[in-house]
């Protein structure tokens, strides 16, 4: 499993779905194209939510895996072409 280097970390543990997405959206808005956001989440809905969100926004889901206390997602910001 490749360990990606994140530019920002969002700790969304304890948040109920879809709040991890809502918060991730806010954080992403302040990030640059190509930067990587690492997200920690405990809600099981995240497993389907983040891929769906990436398909919708064009951001790239680099990798996700399960750890002892939740899920870890690495998402790269991809600016939408105008």
């Amino acid at each position, binding site marked *: 499993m490749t360990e990606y280097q994140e530019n920002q970390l969002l700790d969304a543990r*304890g*948040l*109920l*779905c*879809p*709040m991890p*997405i*809502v918060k991730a959206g806010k954080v992403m808005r302040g990030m640059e194209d190509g930067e990587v956001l690492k997200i920690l989440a405990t809600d*099981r*809905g995240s497993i*389907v*939510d983040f*891929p*769906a*969100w990436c*398909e*919708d*926004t064009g951001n790239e889901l680099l990798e996700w895996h399960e750890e002892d206390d939740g899920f870890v997602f690495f998402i790269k910001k991809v600016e939408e072409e105008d």
Partner: protein
Amino acid sequence: MTPAEVRAAQQEGAAVLDLRTPHPFAAEHLEGALSVQFNRADLVDRVELVFPEDLPMIMHGEPEAIGKVAAKLLADAGFPVLGHLEGGLKAWKAEGLPVVQLPTMDVDELKERMDEFTVVDARDPFEFKYGHVPGSGILSWTEAWYEADKAGDDPPIAVICGDEIRSVLVASILARKGKNAELVTGGMVDWIERDYPIEKGMG
């Protein structure tokens, strides 16, 4: 607040927020109560997204300690919180005040009886687009309060989301408006696990 005071406030338009998990709520709750599962991390954020900021609200937590903490969290965030229900369900029932149930079904039952229901998805548009129950329509948890009146009276409405938390909220909003709503337990997580058909796009 005593049960009688809560009932009176309800009749004036206040909303009771039931802070319990989905199954105890479905089994029995105060008539007209809305299901908003408690946690400290994002209760305020969720309430902000669902309800108008001037809606007077009353907390119902079991045990009461949860009601008190929720009342404070929301009051501190600027919501018009009238108080919490003292004595909980026990006290409410002792006063002879009405309790109701929310009917439930699991995904197997939904698959079998799909034609008998209007299936409504309580998730956000991007989740719905990614994959939903074929033939279902979207009524996002953040829109439900404002759009509930438009829902049909017949056939009954089966509400689904990822797990159960947003669907039980929307089902309770519909029920409060007198609609015939039922909760799909296990949600899309179970539906997908069983490999049931998925439709993509906005429907």
